[in-house]
């Protein structure tokens, strides 16, 4: 394993990709939709369901509109990256594999204090929960480590092990940077050296303004309702496609609409138009969609169905 310190944000990502590839994960690409966390990627949410074995790792750009700070806060962003690993069934040496990944990005186990501190994970919007830890490195949370117990209201059998790394925070620590915008994005010795700020400072400002003050809430609300209706309409279709005569349950297209509804809710939340009591109702509506998608997925081949 490379013990050489990485020099840039992207090098840390590349090392994680290489590490998990070497340990048998399918290196997937980010999902092409707006999501709040890597868990929303169907490679995690849907593939953690059913009986089929699975191993995937990927970077997922994630959006949390309420966390926008116009790029001024040293570590709060409305758009950031998560690194996500999901292995089903969870292997017995998952903790060791995880520690190996830290070593791979230049955290020397001999010099740092790594701790597994109880932190049970729950996603009310996905109807999912699991037990695990937040992993501390010298008192800083660097990852979330979870054994999924339930997703979309279904008991997970076998259980998936999920690792989520908050890439910016982890990289800032490894690279010794105090403000995210100062972090080298590519090699600082490259002919055109770019910092995180060069890449994202402007977009943080633009999105913060749009998220907080400009986004048309009527449109967002309509999109939410449309996504909800479309999701249900998709799942209401017959399993047998009348055109091809094949059994095609459209779990993924339906789940896309669930993701969309979830993101619309996040945007509405950032615009401050959702009251405390309404909040729970919206979360409940997204969860209802997630559950229906999960119900559909476990009836598909990828979800372990066999005729």
């Amino acid at each position, binding site marked *: 394993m490379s013990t050489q310190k990485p020099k840039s944000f992207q090098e840390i990502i590349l090392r994680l990709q290489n590490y998990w590839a070497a340990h048998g994960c399918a290196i997937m690409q980010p999902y092409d939709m707006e999501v709040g966390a890597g868990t929303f990627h169907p490679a995690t949410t849907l593939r953690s369901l059913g009986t089929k074995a699975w191993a995937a790792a990927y970077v997922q750009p994630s959006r949390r509109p309420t966390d926008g700070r116009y790029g001024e806060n*040293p*570590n709060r962003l409305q758009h950031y990256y998560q690194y996500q690993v999901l292995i089903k*069934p*969870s*292997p*017995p040496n998952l*903790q060791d594999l995880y520690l190996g990944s830290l070593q791979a990005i230049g955290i020397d*186990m*001999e*010099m*740092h*204090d*790594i*701790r*597994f*501190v*109880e932190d*049970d994970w729950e996603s009310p919007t996905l109807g999912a929960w*699991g*037990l*695990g*830890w937040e992993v501390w*490195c*010298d*008192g*800083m949370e660097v990852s979330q480590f979870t*054994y999924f*117990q339930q997703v979309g209201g279904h008991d*997970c*059998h*076998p*259980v998936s*092990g999920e690792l989520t790394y908050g890439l910016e925070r982890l990289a800032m*620590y490894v690279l010794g940077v*105090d403000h995210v915008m100062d972090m080298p994005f590519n090699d600082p010795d490259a002919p055109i050296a770019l910092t995180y700020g060069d890449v994202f400072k402007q977009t943080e400002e633009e999105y913060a303004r749009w998220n907080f003050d400009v986004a048309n809430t009527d449109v967002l609300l309509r999109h939410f309702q449309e996504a909800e209706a479309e999701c249900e309409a998709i799942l209401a279709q017959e399993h047998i496609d009348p055109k091809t005569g094949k059994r095609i349950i459209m779990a993924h297209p339906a789940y896309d609409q669930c993701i969309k509804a979830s993101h619309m809710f996040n945007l509405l939340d950032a615009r401050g138009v959702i*009251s*405390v*009591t309404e909040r729970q109702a919206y979360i409940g509506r997204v969860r209802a969609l997630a559950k229906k998608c999960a119900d559909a997925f476990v009836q598909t081949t990828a979800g372990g169905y066999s005729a």
Partner: protein
Amino acid sequence: MADLLIELFSEEIPARMQTRAAQDLKKMVTDGLVENGITYAGAAAFATPRRLALTIQGVLDHSPATREERKGPRVDAPEKAIQGFLRGAGLTMDQLDIRDEKKGQVYFAVIEKPGRPAADIVAEVLENAIRNFPWPKSMRWGAGVLRWVRPLHSIICLLTNDTGSTVVPVQIDDIAAGDTTRGHRFMGADAFSVTGFDDYATKLKRAHVILDPQERQDMIWQDATNMAFANGLEVVDDRGLLAEVAGLVEWPVVLMGKIADEFLDLPAEVLQTSMKEHQKFFSVREPKSGKITRFITVANRETADNGATILAGNQKVLSARLADAKFFWENDLRVAQGDGLTAWTDRLSNVTFHNKLGSQKTRIDRIVSLAATLASIVGASAGDATLAAQVAKADLSSEMVYEFPELQGLMGRYYATAAGLPDAVAAACQDHYSPLGPSDDVPSAPVSVTVALADKLDTLAGFWAIDEKPTGSKDPFALRRAALGVIRLILENNVRLSLSDVIAAHLAQSALSETGQDLAADLLAFFHDRLKVFLRDQGIRYDVIEACLSRGDQDDLVLIVERAKALAAVLETDDGINLVQGFKRANNILSQAEEKDGVEYSFGADIKFAEEEVERQLFAALETTTPKIKTALQAQDFAAAMADMAALRGPIDAFFDGVQVNSDNAIVRRNRLNMLHSIRDLVGQVADLNRIEG
């Protein structure tokens, strides 16, 4: 005799569960052994983040053999009876003895159970313990079905005696018990085998694991206090944090760091909360000023640079946290000193308290109006009390409380002071939440008491009005706690008020309900229930409280409690106990007569119809005692009233011994019943003695 060693080695067990889990393991295994006839001399259980361990000394090698004889049916008994006997004994026909008894030949079953080796029993008991372990939350992992708090990796189950040690064959799904374990995750990762508990503890220590949580706590505390002392400082005592931190490390290494100068002006509580909640740091302060200037963190390993890298990392995380806290504090002070706390209160009109009870601002308005009513009853300045009620919740809008909800109230006090409000008002901002628990301090400053009562009574009245009462174990709005708070505020401050009137008036005035009287009566019954629980915890019997709650003023908790205490005291005496018996006898005779005759004997008795001496004596006693009791009751001196009543015990006993109430003479009978009625009335002014048990 042998010694048993068990270790359950897993991924990191949540710190808060470790102590309990070690106790549960010990209890489940030792109980299981004893139930199966295996006694032992002593046992001790331990927990670290990655293991539960149990050592049991002096374990019997075999459970004792048992022999049991059972007498069965006669040989010529019906087939069904014989079959039933066989089933019960678990034997077959040819295993039965036939013996000659007086009544004929009878079947006998002799059930002999040989002793079993300890190892067999240990294996069964351990498997049962693992499969039924009472974790607060457990999980599955991989493709298995076993549940444990986190994935279970290995098991040691070892019996050791003079001749050596033997692994007890236990197989839990794919884990077979053995004699090996691992040390510290980073400082002693290789597997090693052990021969018994002493060997286990020694080798663990060599592999950088301190098995005993108490030893880890002691090490941490000693190192921390020494380190602080060497710098002329002291560690802020926090046993809960110490236990938690000891549950996060197997090899504690204490490190002390400085808090950057720019954060030293933050309130001590803010520093302490931020460091404790987020980082699990101990606070270190200057003994004289109480100023927190350093922190102590406990790492789980030694490093070549003596923890310098670890400390630097922790310091960096802390600085980021405290930068947030400082930002909030300064923003908040700017608001408090500039716009004043009402700016925050106004903003609370946008925050929902409960969708059926309006915004936090609406709630505050209700509390203000109730505080105005209560101020004169409690004896607080009405101006201060209403002002305090207006601003007591203001800090809920502050940035600091948004970040650290547990600092609500305390921040209110700081900000009220910063806004130049009177001390009594600032104190009420903090103290009006009290008491929170049954052992919490109860405020005594009149303004604080007023706002605390107004806050809790409004909450209770509000949730009663929208029919959100606690049911069974569900009490999402902590209404039982609020009611107990009201009870303690009233009793400890001797607040004399008519509870249901105040509640009914508040419900009407705040337009919470149109059926205020009924709701107030229902809420009063809830207070009575909580009062029963509260008094029972104070050692006052349930029936005594019941007796007092069913007679006299129901609305003034102070009086109810005084009556209950007086009654409880008199029940400690012979006179008191006998008075209850006499009263019950009188009441029984009277009730039966009333039922039979369909009349109420409430005309008063006349001495001229008294026939017997004992009857006349009871008359005389009643005549002298009644006015005394009345006077005592008027003065609310229940102890004196009860003592006077107890003094009636002699004449009442003599009366029952000497006369037959149900005399053949109708006039005499009616007179005697009338007399019993006046006794019932007299005593009933304090309590319904019928409810006293025994």
